[in-house]
């Protein structure tokens, strides 16, 4: 059984349901003792910015900020797609806890050890 788990999230306020469920599943992975990566790309990179997720609260789920904070506190890592980040002119000084802007090689390295990946 692989000890790594990746959750790919490509949405933010354009689909708050997917953004939220992605972090719920990521928390299930980190809570199950997996080395867990959330890969934020496309619109999902906006979640990497402090304050952006504060207004997202999908019905039936915990607020997204709380889910993200819990993920980071539990040791989860977020990779933020560099070209997606640059395209949107986001601020590297405003990253949330646990987030790092990376290129594709870092993602490939993580997945190459046999990590499964689920996408939202």
């Amino acid at each position, binding site marked *: *059984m692989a000890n790594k788990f990746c959750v790919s999230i490509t949405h933010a306020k354009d689909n708050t349901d997917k953004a939220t469920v992605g*972090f*719920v*599943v*990521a*928390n*299930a*992975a*980190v*809570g*199950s*003792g*997996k080395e867990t990566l959330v890969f934020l790309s496309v619109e999902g990179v906006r979640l990497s910015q402090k304050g952006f997720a504060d207004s997202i609260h999908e019905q039936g789920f*915990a607020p997204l900020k709380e*889910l993200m904070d*819990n993920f980071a506190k*539990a040791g989860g890592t977020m990779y933020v797609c560099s070209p997606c980040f640059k395209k949107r002119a986001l601020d590297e000084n405003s990253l949330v806890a646990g987030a790092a802007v990376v290129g594709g090689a870092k993602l490939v390295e993580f997945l190459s050890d046999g990590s499964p990946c689920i996408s939202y």
Partner: protein
Amino acid sequence: MRARCTADVEWDAGDLGCGDLVLELMIRVTAMAPGQVLRLVALDPGARADIPAWCRMTGHTLVEEQPPLYLIRRRGT
């Protein structure tokens, strides 16, 4: 419904489910001493499948399951 095994710690998780449930469960079980038993009440319908799976992955022992009641013994190390 009474469990046969004595619990050292109790947690009523209410209707917490999925990632919310197992992340908090991990925090609580990690805080216990090796060998101690948690009496968990989890009402979420997904818990019936998730709790045994979580125990298999983490190495903790599911001593007893009578949904919504679960007894989990913390692993030795």
